[in-house]
């Protein structure tokens, strides 16, 4: 398929968005991580036991509670926000592809890509 100028431009947009997303996520993570290490770096860590859903970083609501809680949990909650930003980048990418296919008038792929996006959103709703 030959590329049209607008397809090329969309590819640039996708490329920039992905890299910005990764960069943004990394910066947030590094800030939270450094703050954590500066204050709690000498605490022992033990990841051999699994807490599961008791962890304070499992959802947006638990993370926002952690942000107000102070202590180790607050800094690590910031890091987790960075992780979530990273995890959003492919979702944004899929959404941009829908835009691209719409601009190209490609109804089949608007449909296919929308199903993929809905599947991703459905995974968020699953328990």
């Amino acid at each position, binding site marked *: 398929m030959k590329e049209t100028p607008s397809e090329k431009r969309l590819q640039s947009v996708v490329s920039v968005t992905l890299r910005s997303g990764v960069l943004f996520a990394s910066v947030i993570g590094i800030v939270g991580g450094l703050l954590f290490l500066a204050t709690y770096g000498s605490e022992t860590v033990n*990841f051999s036991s699994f807490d599961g859903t008791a962890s304070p970083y499992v959802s947006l609501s638990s993370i926002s509670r952690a942000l107000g809680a102070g202590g180790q949990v607050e800094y690590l909650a910031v890091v987790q926000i960075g992780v979530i930003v990273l*995890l959003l980048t492919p979702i944004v990418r*899929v959404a941009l592809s829908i835009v691209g296919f719409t601009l190209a008038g490609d109804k089949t792929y608007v449909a296919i890509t929308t199903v993929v996006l809905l599947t991703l959103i459905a995974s968020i709703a699953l328990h």
Partner: protein
Amino acid sequence: MNAHEFTLIVFLISIGAGLLGALTGLGGGIVVTPALTLLLGVDMRYAIGASLVSVVATSSGAAAAYVRDGLSNIRIGMFLELATTVGAITGALLASKTPTDALAIIFGIVLLHSAWQVTQAKASAVRKEEAPDRFSEALQLGGTYHSPEGPIDYEVGRAKSGFGLMYVAGVLSGLLGIGSGALKVIAMDRIMGIPFKVSTATSSFMIGVTGVASAAIYLKRGYIQPLIALPVMLGVLGGAMLGAKLLPHLPVKTLRRVFAVAVAIVAVQMIVHGIRRHI
């Protein structure tokens, strides 16, 4: 050990994993999990959570370059993502029901296959031209890519088999927190007849989307711990960038063989630990 030591060690291991990934095409994730579980005694579930984060990071980081160069075929990718995302959700839901020992054994087997994969010739010298099936034609799956010899057109065959294999790749991704890039490239390159360069580029972009399909479930179940995920993510990204820079200057063939052996040894360790219920 304390947090300083832990994050530093994880970071360094992850740089190694990223380097290994860039040089072998294996993907950093597949090395991170055994390192975390076998070396640092981290619970398998935390390990696969961190691994998945790194897989998404490298996918978004690397895919940016491929898309810009026009190598990824977005249509093929999206069409196949219909299968991989559903597979990934299935795999992630299964992961919580699977005892960690069994996960370790399955992981070891997949790792063995990847080690073998790395030693295989990169692409068949004479690529069998796949005739496009009607399905592929209807979905416009063929394309053109720019090679040093000029633009090359290609068509896609056996789309339905590729689709089925992608579902399996998705399940493995969700179950083990890996990218399943190797399996995706096999499905595209060997079964669907898509040129190797396009297969690898498209797989690289797909891996992130597949990863996110399981990530929400992993997050909710508490598999993703920020203190582990962060150094893994940064390390693998850094290692992959370093690896990409070093790649032209290194004896890749020799390195691949060395790595294949090392990875195979680790694979056996994972299986043994799983069987002995040490993990």
